[in-house]
């Protein structure tokens, strides 16, 4: 992070400028998430078209088991809530409880990944078995990549917030806010994915 030193301005204006700048980064992140969402939209569109146009032969159809993915959905939804708690704690400058909630969120994310792995290994089809299988793995895999990245981000934020000198404080909460926004986005995508892949 570069420090911002606006020229010939009073300290008060400086403060304003500073906030403005943080705002821009969140704005940029939102634009990026829209772009990222379009990637998923492309995948969903492909999946739905494949399903409509290239129906599988009857013997290749496999009903997906619901328990594990439902657990996954709950894990992610809860983690969204715990992340929110972390943000609230930071607002109250309660960095101890903020760190606790961050850690809980990260472990929920990791639990999600673990249970996703379990599902992968118990599924009776592989990546290249048929079109449906390939799309299933592509969609969940691409999402899993996002979760992995998100979990890393949370851990980095957690580590930063433990640093003395206040790398992450109620004054400078952009890293936490960014990670939180991203995490909610990944959750939202999962919900759509769950509905399209498992329920429809």
């Amino acid at each position, binding site marked *: 992070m*570069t*420090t*911002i*030193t*606006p*020229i*010939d*301005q009073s300290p008060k*204006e400086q403060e*304003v*400028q*500073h906030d*403005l*700048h943080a*705002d*821009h*980064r969140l*704005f*940029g992140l939102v*634009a*990026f998430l*829209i*772009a*990222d*969402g*379009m*990637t*998923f*939209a*492309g*995948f969903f*569109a*492909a999946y739905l*078209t*494949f399903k409509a*146009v*290239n129906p*599988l032969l009857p013997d290749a159809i496999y009903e997906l088991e619901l328990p594990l993915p439902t657990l996954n959905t709950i894990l992610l939804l809860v983690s969204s809530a715990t992340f929110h708690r972390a943000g609230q704690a930071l607002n109250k400058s309660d960095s101890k409880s903020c760190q606790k909630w961050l850690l809980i969120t990260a472990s929920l994310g990791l639990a999600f990944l673990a249970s996703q792995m379990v599902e992968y290994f118990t599924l009776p089809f592989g*990546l*290249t078995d*048929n*079109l449906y299988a*390939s*799309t299933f793995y*592509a969609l969940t895999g*691409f999402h899993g990549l996002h979760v992995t990245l998100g979990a890393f981000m949370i851990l980095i934020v957690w580590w930063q917030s433990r640093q003395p000198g206040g790398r992450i404080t109620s004054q400078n909460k952009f890293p936490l806010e960014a990670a939180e926004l991203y995490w909610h986005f990944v959750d939202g995508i999962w919900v759509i994915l769950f509905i399209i892949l498992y329920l429809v």
Partner: protein
Amino acid sequence: MTITIPPKSNKESEGLQPKGFLRYFSFSLDHKVIGIQYLVCGFLFYLVGGALASAIRIELTSPISDFMPRDVYNQVLTLHGTIMIFLWIVPVVNGAFGNYLIPFYVGARDMAFPRLNAVAFWLIPPAGLMLISSYFINGAAQSGWTAYPPLSITTPAAGQIIWILSVLLLGGSSIFGGINFIATILKLRRPGLKLMQLPMYCWAMLGTSILVVLSTPVLAGTLILLSFDIVAHTGFFNPTLGGNVIVYQHLFWFYSHPAVYIMVLPAFGLVSEILPIHSRKPLFGYTTMVYSIMAIVFLGLIVWAHHMFTSGTPPWMRLFFTIATSFIAVPTGIKFFNWVATLWGGKISLNSAILFSCGFIVNFVLGGITGVALAQVPFDIHVHDTYFVVAHFHYIVYGGSVFVIFSSIYHWYPKFTGRMLNEKIGRIHFILTFVGFNLCFAPQHWLGMNGMPRRVAEYDPQFTFVNQLSSFGALLMALSTLPFLWNVIHSSFKGEIAGENPWQALTPEWLTSSPPPVENWLGEAPLVTDPYGYGKKQLQEQFNDLESEKQ
């Protein structure tokens, strides 16, 4: 009135960076340096793409495949299309001019995210070099710039994978750029400047960036799936494994039709800046121009299947896409009529900038009319995938975007370098380009209608003469780059000194020294609420006003 100056976020790092010529080879955060980097880098790739085009035209002077092997021909045309689109037009009309001009236009000292900006640029040279080097490794991709499967799955994998990787990098660069432009235009505007007071290029870039953000990721996703098909032998687009090749085409064109507006909307914006200045009149119909940009953005997203009229598409779909595509002519037409109305009754200086801009209008109208013809399903069925289509899009991408790029270089060169380009040589360049261009591409309409498909190295001997005519035009175009190159290089040392504002323009980039200082203006950023206020009073008065406002 107090003026708040947006923060300059690159001040410290600027001190560490090389000065003078060398800064163009550094990871500079200055938007002006990055703009020039985009421009020069893009132009070098244009020379490579043009050399490849010349190879195509040499091959086509004879009806048999004699100049190069057939698979090399396919590699050459794939590289030509990819380089011209992803490494020349898109980076230059967006990246180069966008980076240079947008911060000036919104009254900022830099882009919203300077670091991201530099990263976006520095993705381009390696991606481009990688793409070109694939030719020497194992043969470049040879399935056309559209890379339709299953051909792209069955041709040699190495070249295709490198092609995918570099297009992914270039797409990423484009998305980063788009995010940056949206944030800069919407968030970094100088206080007191309203959206509807922005120069038209800002609106064009806003529309383009929306298209970039919405459509490029879909291409990225599609290419990732395609690479899985090639590397991991999945079957998304491989019919022998149950895949569906049409889905690829839908996804590809969902990006690549908007991509054509990504190539041309910024050019529209640049012309809207150039015409008023050199004809000394306000831009005609500002408000309708803004709305028509947004209409083009919206329509551009819902017309992609007009590239697939002969693939497997159901009739209702063909009809919907015909109507939607045709309607793009309406907002586009509004812009063209507005430009003519801007010229009308002006005091036009017939310099190279305006000549290239007017060449653009004429060429693009022809390309647009053939486009509307192509949008009609029954018409397209005969000429799809023929030289008629090749003629259509070269009229638009070359006659349109490339003409605008040249026009813009003549217009902004004084700002970039502080020196003027030579007018006489500029006109020679224009005449050679205009004549060569029309000689090269006009006959291709006839070729396509009469039975010459595109992407072939050998053809029916009855087409020999017309092909040679076309190749001769290409030769003139190649020659026309020589006076241009000489002009640009020679003038940077020996050109007449330009001064602050050689065109007596009112847009903010001219209200500072040429080339501008690191922070764009030495004092405060001027507030220009009427960038097209020509003809209201005597110019000199207007300048005095602005000068006193600056104080």
